[in-house]
């Protein structure tokens, strides 16, 4: 498509209001970028889009890159905390009958490890990566609903602090990361521990949902002119599908945790079989979310792989359409599988077979993806750099995790190894292989964009091998102890069983794996301070985030690119076509049509505001208080309402008016 097509009469939306019709004040027009020289353009845009100085300014930021950076750092710190939990557990299990950690602390440790990894690390970090990259990749200047996005971060942060402060007070949940009733119910879960679980879920899901909606609207409505559906980068597709899965899956866990807290706090009987409730209802609701959760973590990781492979194979992805369709198929199928987590509960036979079959069905789109990736590598001229190494690590690990998954999908085997270390091994292969390795590759790929400097390639290779060896040493033998019958969630085991040596080996592997993250952290810090300057496009990659400087300016693009290809920078090597005509004294960006991405509206993007933080404090305090009394909801309503009005009430900026 030539760029002239984009403005032809045919493409204009049929009902097009002139802005002067009706009772609206005429647009107070400002200076436009048309024909403006680069220096003045940068000066104008920098002033318009900057995050205000000072502490209040920083807390008011709505720049997607600033928020994403905070998210990324916070999630990484939670990864370290969850990792320390794991190391503590492994030290306790490194020999039989060790007395380092008692059963009560051990229960808190594995629960905190599980919830931290799932709710405070894995989901937030993939969403945060999306918050940073999606607006850049679709060629816009900020995420949709930037204040909602900022609010999401603050709610997430308060949820994480809430959980970890509870842990410091020995009040952490101790009922496992999925907190099944009746163990977590009012009868067997005295104290506040299960309430902490329930409310930390509420915090983190509110924030995930907010980010998901913002991401969906950014992708559907803010794409650069010409980026029709078939030209959306695969990574962006992955985030779009993931966000839809979040929108339809996360409400299930919020309903679960709300029901639980109602049972505990005001005496409802939803999960109480003595009064007409049911305990399995909890499991159904939880896994309706819990299985898609795995794909919420995994789909963005496949998007990262689809970004890394073309960049280093030096050709566009093979089978672009096939990859997109598999992403969508995985998104849909992820909802059909939850019952395989409940085989041990004695479901009707036919139902169980159905879920076994659909669990295996999901292997088809995943297979298509792997085939397309291999074909891309096969046909390209691969340059082996750290990001690609981690992709190879992902292939290897994920295939093993997938194989044990197929084994677990058969009911008889599942009944044998249910709740043993075999399962622990399986899901770490899937979660770490399927998500953490691509994430580490992505970190090496995009770090130069975020900081403007390169990470060390040499340390990167050390990091990769240390991680691979440590990971497999820690988790492969878990399959074996699992088959020997070692149950998960036990704080110790007797010496006579002869599990001592292998557990010592596992623990050594776990420490090695942890050390690989220490090396990674060192490489991050070293790269940020000392790394060689990266330039705009150090990998000579083809997507739009590489068209702007590293790190990108607050306004992302001085002029919005016009897209003609899936890999725009490879298609337009001479000069990138760009759009003009936007105001420079107000935060303008382009709203385009959903399918074709025809430019449609000059939209104003929200200005910095402290209100999202205040709203998050009001909401957070209400959640916190609600574990003590249901009246918290009533008392909290007023401050929440006030902060929301403050948030939405126009302040007279040009951005508020038109």
């Amino acid at each position: 498509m030539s760029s002239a097509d984009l403005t032809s009469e045919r493409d204009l939306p049929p009902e097009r209001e002139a802005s002067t019709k009706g009772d609206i004040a005429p647009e107070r027009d400002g200076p436009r970028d048309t024909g403006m020289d680069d220096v003045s353009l940068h000066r104008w845009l920098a002033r318009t889009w900057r995050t205000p100085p000072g502490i209040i300014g920083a807390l008011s930021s709505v720049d997607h890159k600033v928020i994403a950076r905070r998210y990324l750092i916070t999630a990484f710190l939670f990864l370290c905390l969850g990792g320390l939990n794991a190391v503590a557990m492994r030290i306790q299990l490194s020999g039989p009958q060790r007395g380092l950690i008692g059963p009560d602390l051990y229960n808190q440790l594995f629960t905190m490890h599980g919830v931290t990894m799932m709710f405070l690390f894995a989901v937030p970090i993939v969403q945060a990566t999306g918050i940073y990259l999606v607006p850049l990749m679709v060629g816009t200047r900020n995420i949709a609903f930037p204040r909602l996005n900022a609010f999401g971060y603050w709610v997430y942060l308060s949820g994480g602090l809430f959980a970890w402060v509870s842990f410091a007070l020995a009040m952490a949940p101790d009922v496992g990361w999925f907190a099944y009733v009746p163990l977590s119910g009012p009868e067997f879960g005295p104290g506040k521990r299960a309430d902490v679980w329930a409310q930390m879920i509420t915090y983190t899901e509110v924030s995930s949902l907010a980010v998901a909606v913002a991401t969906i609207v950014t992708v559907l409505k803010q794409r650069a002119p010409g980026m029709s559906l078939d030209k959306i980068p695969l990574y962006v597709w992955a985030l779009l599908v993931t966000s839809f899965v979040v929108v339809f899956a996360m409400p299930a866990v919020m309903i679960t945790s709300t029901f639980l807290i109602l049972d505990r706090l005001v005496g409802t009987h939803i999960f109480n079989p003595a009064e007409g409730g049911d305990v399995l209802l909890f499991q159904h609701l939880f896994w309706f979310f819990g299985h898609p959760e795995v794909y919420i973590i995994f789909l963005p990781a496949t998007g990262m792989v689809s970004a890394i492979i073309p960049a280093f194979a030096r050709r566009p992805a093979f089978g672009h359409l096939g990859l997109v369709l598999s992403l969508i198929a995985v998104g849909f199928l992820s909802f059909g599988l939850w019952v395989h987590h409940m085989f041990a509960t004695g479901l009707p036979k036919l139902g169980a077979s159905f879920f076994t079959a659909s669990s295996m069905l999901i292997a088809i789109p995943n297979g298509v993806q792997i085939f397309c990736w291999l074909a891309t590598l096969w046909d390209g001229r691969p340059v082996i750099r750290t990001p690609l190494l981690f992709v190879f690590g992902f292939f290897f690990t994920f295939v093993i995790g997938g194989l044990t998954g197929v084994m677990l999908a058969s009911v008889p085997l599942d009944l044998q190894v249910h709740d043993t270390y075999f399962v622990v091994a399986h899901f770490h292969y899937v979660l770490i292989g399927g998500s953490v390795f691509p994430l580490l590759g992505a970190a090496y790929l995009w770090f130069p964009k975020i900081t403007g400097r390169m990470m060390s390639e040499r340390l990167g290779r050390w990091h990769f091998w240390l991680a691979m060896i440590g990971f497999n040493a820690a988790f492969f033998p878990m399959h074996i102890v699992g088959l020997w019958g070692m149950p998960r969630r036990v704080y110790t085991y007797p010496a006579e069983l002869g599990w001592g040596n292998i557990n010592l080996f596992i623990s050594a592997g776990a420490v090695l794996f942890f050390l690989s993250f220490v090396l990674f952290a060192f490489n991050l810090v070293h790269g940020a301070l000392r790394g060689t300057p990266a330039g705009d496009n150090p990998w000579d990659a083809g997507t739009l985030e590489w068209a702007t400087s590293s790190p990108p300016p607050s306004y992302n693009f001085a002029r919005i690119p016009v897209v003609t290809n899936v890999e725009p920078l490879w298609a337009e090597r001479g000069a990138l076509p760009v759009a003009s005509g936007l105001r420079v004294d107000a935060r303008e960006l382009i709203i385009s049509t959903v399918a074709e991405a025809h430019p449609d509206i000059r939209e104003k993007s929200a200005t910095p505001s402290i209100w999202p933080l205040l709203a998050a404090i009001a909401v957070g305090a209400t959640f916190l208080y609600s574990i003590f009394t249901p009246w918290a909801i009533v008392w909290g309503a007023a401050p929440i309402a006030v902060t929301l009005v403050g948030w939405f009430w126009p302040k007279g900026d040009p951005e508020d008016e038109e």
Partner: protein
Amino acid sequence: MNQRPALDLSGLPTFGHGPRSPTWWGTLGFMALEGMGFALAAGAYLYLVTLWPNWRLSAPQPNHWPGTIVTLLLIASLVPNHILNTYAKRCAMRPVRIGMVVMSLLGLAPLVVRWFEFPALNIYWDTNAYGSMIWVLLGLHTTHLITDVGDTIVLTVLMFTHHGYSGRRFGDVGDNVFYWDFVVLTWIPIYLLIYWLPRLG
């Protein structure tokens, strides 16, 4: 990277109604996730119904009249709601102001009747699981109703200030109309589940 101007956007409008505007899509996203929450709560209720052959667990029938009145009020409110929408599209200030006041009142009216719905359920939330579930369903929709009415009132006030004279605000009115339709729509299945399903058994 070198650039070449290829497209002039200076003539684009600064706002659009309905699906043209990002807020409309954001509203749709929130409807989807809230709708999902309702669907799951309803699903949980139906799950318990099929589990217990003597459902209602020998509780008395609910009195449907307050609920029925709420239903009628909500359905009736759709008419002015859509009239308001046509004026919002035309950015006509006077009728929009009137319409917003009317819709605020039509939002408060069902809330008042809702107050009488809870006792009319004829059971408490902590009596048994049947009581718990119908309180939960009614509570969810009430929260929904309260937040939307609050939102409508704030927007009404805003339309009476000078901030109202902007395309964006008229767009907000349109999205408010859209959301109210959703509030009404979600009530119908909940109404049937609470008041008529127990009458079947």
